[in-house]
């Protein structure tokens, strides 16, 4: 999977036609084969743009006004990233006319060890769901499977699970990199940053970390697209996907096989009501 040439051509065309102010893609790191997000405003930088199976970041994150200031953006998205983008569009965070979307039919990206990333192995939608231009050959939607770590965790005793999660919260340093790297955490003032609030603990204790991470994951329930940007950002290497995948599997099972961001104008599991919703929990 190397689409660097195509992306460079599209970017040059967009700048030449004055359709964009920013282009957001990937750049090769000079010291190893990893890549970094790359924001350009100057067409002279275009030759540095790359796209390979090392392009791991979810660039939809850069549509937040902090980064691209609500200007016109050319953006490279993979399948999962496009689902996040779809949600950002639905939730009125970006204007559709302000993004030129280059959708990649993704073959899966590699993790740090050079193996195919777990979320790519379990990917349900490798093709872009929203795009202006598509690169690659679409392979279509795949079957949803419950995450392997969640299945394994479910077999363990409750105390063992509690201890495991306690160790996650203990190792959290509350840097909030997970939140800042999530394209769907766009609130101008996050509830976890309310310093005068006594509900959300500002102190860096493990109970504070638990509160913060649980609240964060519940705010993303039914919205998380499993791009794992948070997990890649975590300096303590915490398995944050467990929180999201658990929510996702419960929602998939109970909310008519709902998966976030797959369709245009789909506002998420908790916003929909249907007469055919199961009501067997009502006595």
């Amino acid at each position, binding site marked *: 999977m190397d689409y660097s040439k195509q992306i460079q051509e599209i970017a040059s065309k967009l700048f030449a036609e004055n359709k964009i102010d920013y282009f957001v893609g990937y750049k090769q*790191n000079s010291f190893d084969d990893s890549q970094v997000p790359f924001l350009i405003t100057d067409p002279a930088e275009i030759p540095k743009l790359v796209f390979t199976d090392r392009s791991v970041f979810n660039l939809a*994150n850069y549509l937040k006004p*902090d980064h691209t200031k609500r200007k016109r953006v050319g953006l490279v998205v993979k399948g999962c990233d496009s689902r996040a983008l779809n949600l950002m569009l639905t939730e009125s965070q970006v204007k559709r006319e302000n993004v030129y979307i280059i959708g990649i039919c993704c073959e899966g990206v590699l993790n740090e060890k050079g193996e195919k990333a777990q979320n790519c192995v379990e990917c349900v939608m490798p093709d872009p769901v929203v795009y202006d231009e598509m690169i690659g050959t679409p392979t279509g939607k795949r079957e949803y499977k419950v995450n392997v770590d969640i299945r394994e965790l479910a077999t363990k005793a409750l105390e063992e699970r509690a201890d495991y999660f306690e160790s996650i919260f203990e190792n959290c340093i*509350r840097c909030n990199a997970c*939140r800042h790297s999530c394209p769907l955490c766009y609130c101008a003032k996050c509830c976890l940053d309310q310093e005068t609030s006594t509900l959300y603990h500002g102190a860096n204790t493990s109970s504070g970390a638990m509160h913060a991470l649980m609240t964060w994951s519940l705010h993303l329930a039914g919205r998380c697209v499993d791009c794992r940007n948070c997990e890649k950002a975590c300096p*303590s290497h915490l398995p944050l996907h467990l929180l999201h995948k658990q929510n996702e599997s419960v929602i998939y099972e109970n909310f008519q096989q709902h998966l976030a961001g797959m369709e245009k104008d789909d506002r998420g599991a908790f916003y929909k009501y249907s007469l055919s919703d199961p009501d067997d929990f009502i006595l």
Partner: protein
Amino acid sequence: MNVFIVETDKTGLQKFYKEIIGKFETYAPVEKFGKYDYKKVSKLDECDPDSPIEMTMSVKPLFFPKTAKVMKFREDNTGTTVSETDEDPLTGQRVILGVKHCDARGLQVLDQVYKWDYIDTDYQKRRENTLIISTRCDKAGTQCFCTSLDYDVENSDAHDIRIVNGLDGKIYIQAVTQKGEGFVKENLSQQSAVGSQQSLEEIKKHYQLFEASFRLKMNYSEVNAKLQKLFDSLEFETVSSNCISCNTCAFICPTCHCFKITDEKIKDTGVRYKSYDSCNNGYFTLMAGGHNPRPVKYRRWRQRALHKFVYYKERFGMNLCVGCGHCAISCPVNISIFDVVNQVAKI
């Protein structure tokens, strides 16, 4: 510089470590989720004093914890009463194994700010009651640049005892401070030869090989001189363009020392906490009334880069950045402060 050196081998070193763990409250790098963090250990098998630098968190939290209780308070109709917390600021002696030398230097740098206008007694106590045993890296990490900065890595006295894996297969335990010498004499019960001029040569040889393994090299005095005049540089905007404004770099930095104060209150009693804060965070400079002098990320990055490489040096005569590369390794988008300052200074 103290030259008290003891020669030993791998098993001798293991024995030394085991004796320390048996006798003292010992902290060492413990692996969890693929990252090493300094935790209290009771057995040598639990930890790895030779943990790779790229995978190891800083030792800072043992001196400046990620969160600490400041006071307790209670409100009733007569007003608010304030009391001391039950937190123990460390009274006994403790030993830390496997500290990286850049990290130890970080503590020396932090000392400056903690004994400046206000003396932080908790921090001072922790410093006084801790003995630092450092293992010198055999090879530089991909983001390391400690040898390029304003301190002498080879003759650093930031740690009390230094362990060097000699090229001749021997392991050298070198006491660097008086405290370290006393500690080795008292606690190294095994039979070992006291090192000579030759062991000093071996330590030097090891250093030369280590120094040659650096990918990143910087001309520090040039960078420092140029940055002093570059407050208005537009380059800060370019270098910070992909920064996501999280707090990672500051929280894991061995020398970042900003903190915030928060209260946790249930009904009418509560605790006031002091926790890490970061200048890369958009709320950091937000004032009551709503004004924020650093509302955009390039201004925050300018503050970070100049504080690390200019302001602290001006005030305390030491560079705030110690070149450990932790920030670049942990940064979600791999921004390296080395690249930032070099790019801004155009070197």
